[in-house]
């Protein structure tokens, strides 16, 4: 049993549509692809004949024409006569490298601050990320280099407090000192771990979005 969408010709058509859809904002590209999948499922039913598939795809029109119709930017590829541009992900790669770099080198602020600013600029200029992606990137990766620092300071501050109160000999400080980890320490650690997870997740998500475009910029020569 084969549904229409499993047919090799349909698969090939959908693949080409997916490649062309890079020229659209991410949300619009996805919507178009979903609409076309629904259309083909309705038009072909189950176990369609090869000729029925060919006819349905012909009637649908070429993937590039659909994306043009949807207002897809012609892009440097089309202007250059269909030659794919390989370095078109430089903004995305740059943004990720600079933002992560600025987080790693937060202790060396003369380096970290310019990296951070340049990373944010590239993030905003990206053509492969949607507005939501950019917002997520700015919040998580952009603020990211501050969060570990703040969390670290928070842990430190608590330690310092226990020490100083210890030397003062005040009774009120003993609760924090005896229990090993105070509630604040635990909260700080949990927050740090949660943030680290969020950070990695965001990084993977943005990298995959950027790579999706990059793979396709190389592919359509076929």
């Amino acid at each position, binding site marked *: 049993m084969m549904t229409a969408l499993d047919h090799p010709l349909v698969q090939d058509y959908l693949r080409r549509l997916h490649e062309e859809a890079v020229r659209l904002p991410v949300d619009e590209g996805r919507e178009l692809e979903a609409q076309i999948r*629904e*259309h083909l*499922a*309705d038009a072909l*039913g189950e176990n369609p004949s090869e000729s029925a598939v060919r006819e349905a795809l012909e009637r*649908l029109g070429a993937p590039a*024409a659909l994306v043009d119709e949807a207002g897809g930017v012609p892009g440097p590829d089309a202007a250059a006569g269909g030659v794919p541009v390989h370095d078109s992900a430089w903004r995305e790669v740059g943004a990720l490298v600079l933002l992560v770099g600025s987080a790693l080198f937060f202790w060396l602020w003369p380096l970290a601050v310019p990296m951070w600013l340049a990373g944010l600029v590239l993030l905003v200029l990206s053509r492969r990320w949607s507005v939501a992606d950019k917002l997520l990137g700015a919040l998580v990766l952009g603020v990211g280099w501050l969060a570990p620092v703040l969390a670290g300071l928070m842990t430190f501050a608590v330690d310092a407090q226990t020490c100083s109160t210890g030397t003062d000999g005040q009774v009120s400080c003993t609760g924090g000192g005896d229990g090993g980890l105070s509630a604040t320490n635990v909260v700080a650690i949990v927050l740090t771990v949660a943030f680290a997870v969020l950070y990695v997740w965001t990084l993977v998500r943005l990298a995959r979005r950027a790579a999706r475009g990059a793979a396709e910029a190389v592919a359509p020569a076929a």
Partner: protein
Amino acid sequence: MTSPSAVTQLRRGVLEHCVLALLQDDERYGYDLVTELSEAGLLASEGTIYPLLSRLRKEELVRTSWQESPSGPPRRYYSLTDRGRSALADFTTSWTDFRTSVDHILLGRGTR
């Protein structure tokens, strides 16, 4: 002979409101709309309707809802919004005037 580009342009100009007109009584799914428009000779290639539907949705002339389909993934159904309804009413008036004027010139000359 009619120049193909003239027909293409006319088709392009009226397609949007023909879609709205097809939705005025019932909500419909994409393939259903395509079939009817295609039979009426209003679609050069069937896929072009989908970017148009997305645009109409963005302009809030139509809205979408999801319903299960027996043949595959859930289908999105399109229906007219109030705004779509009034855009359709405006176009219907303009079209009637337009058609009368064009008929007057095209046919009026012939009889003179």
